[in-house]
């Protein structure tokens, strides 16, 4: 097999009650564990929300969260580099559209060191490999797990 690198990134998602202070409690646990966040997004329903985050040490994050009584899950997602010019995201999305790949959810993050913009894509587990291969083939940068820390 070609790339030994895993082309997916581990995203931690966490159940949070929709109440004042809950998000603060969550980030404080990461801080206490010395865990850095690369990206964060929050989806909300009426009574609860799901925080999705990409962190410097997902295994440790899951451990400290479990110890603090949080329910979390690790989901593989794709972190895709998007060049900072109009239409760049459109091109990527059209690529997925033509391949009939549906995005379950997506969010953006930027980094300072590399001056880059990135999108996190969550696709159905069955489409994950296909999507990663397609993006690579078209020369679109997909960030590997081990590279996410150095962005």
């Amino acid at each position, binding site marked *: 097999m070609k790339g030994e690198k895993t082309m997916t990134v581990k995203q931690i998602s966490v159940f949070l009650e929709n109440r004042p202070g809950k998000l603060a409690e969550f980030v404080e646990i990461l801080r206490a564990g010395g865990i850095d966040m690369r990206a964060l997004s929050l989806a909300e329903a009426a009574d609860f929300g799901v925080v999705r985050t990409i962190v410097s040490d997902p295994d440790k994050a899951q451990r400290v969260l479990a110890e603090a009584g949080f329910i*979390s899950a690790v989901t593989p997602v794709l972190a895709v580099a998007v060049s900072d010019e109009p239409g760049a995201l459109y091109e990527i999305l059209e690529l997925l559209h033509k391949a009939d790949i549906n995005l379950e959810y997506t969010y953006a993050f930027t980094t300072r060191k590399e001056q880059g913009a990135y999108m996190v894509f969550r696709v159905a587990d069955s489409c994950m490999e296909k999507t990663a291969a397609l993006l690579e083939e078209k020369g679109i940068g997909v960030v590997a797990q081990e590279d996410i820390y150095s962005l």
Partner: protein
Amino acid sequence: MEKRYYREDIECAPREQISKWQSEGLVKSVRNAYENSAYYRRKMDEHGVKPSDIKGLEDIHKLPFVSKDDLREAYPYGLLCRPLSECVRIQSTSGTTGRRVIAFYTQHDIDAWEDCCARALVAAGGTRDDVVQVSYGYGLFTGGAGLNGGSHKLGSLTLPMSSGSTERQIQFMQDLGTTILCCTPSYAAYLAETVTEKGLKDTIKLKAGIFGAEAWSEEMRHDIESKLGLKAYDIYGLTELEGPGVSYECSEQHGMHICEDQFIAEIINPNTGEVLPDGEKGELVFTSLNKEAFPMIRYRTRDICVLSHEKCSCGRTHVRMAKPMGRSDDMLIIKGVNVFPSQVETVLINNGYSPNYQLIVNRVNNTDTLDINVEMTQDMFSDTISEISAREKALVGALKGFLGIYAKVHLVSPKSIERSEGKAKRVIDNRKLY
């Protein structure tokens, strides 16, 4: 060879013998109540019955019922039938329903009670070689005192832990090799959860659990059994009667044997007071046969239950009661529908949620509303809201199907619903109905 009974002569006595004990005990108990309690005397006089009218078991229907209201009215000494100098102990209910009960015991009463608890321990496979961890609350609550006493009587090594300090509970289980755990089912579920989370199941040696003082479902039983690797036995009792040990499960686990040498059990129609035949569902009523300080004559428990006199393959001959289907105290009437919290528990467990929940009942614009706080579990979690919501919707549908009314579900953080280590506060009824 494992000892199967604590008091074989009593527990396996033929029916004629039991009836004889009950007839004699009833006569004695009624006389005790009438002669020593002004409250009982007035009650029987008003009902037009004298101790001399009660010659045996067949006359029990002539006696008036005693209710929780009587206990409240007679509080604290009205039903006491011995001078305080002869009493050695009181125990008390939590008073969560606003009606605290104080029960008095002579040494004779304590001995009889502890004897019942020892029978329960043996029925759960207990022997003098067992290590019995009593994690019911100690103090006024009868749970700790009763099982503590029963375990002493049996000669088991007794760990008087009381409830709480979960880490320490597990530490003692590991270090002393606890084989029998006694606590409330909600606390057992909490311990089971903690043991599972920490991956400690293989470090503990529990073989049996005796869990009572609260309503719990078969689903909860299976959940606790698989997580703690034990066989879970139910035990029943009331402070008014003695405490735990009024009835207990045997290895057959097909109802709880009532200590019929100590109590007469009847099932009545809660509306008319009419005594119902075996197998019919109604309110459970007890009469104590052997209590000196605090006799109970036809005490209405409010527990809705069924009795069975069918022969049990364990060899015990005493009548069995089914797990109470609900307490009329617990029963909620919401939009005219009877709702028992235990039904909610069953649905939650069947759908992969935690059996810790809270029912909140309100009245909005003259219509009842039911909200249920449900703790999120790892199994029901997903990184997508749509999946969590689909599971939540399935739960709402299952609740509607089971309860017959719509309940709004609120998913809350794990372990965020308060677990009192005694009894769980399951229901918050904000309706001002009275």
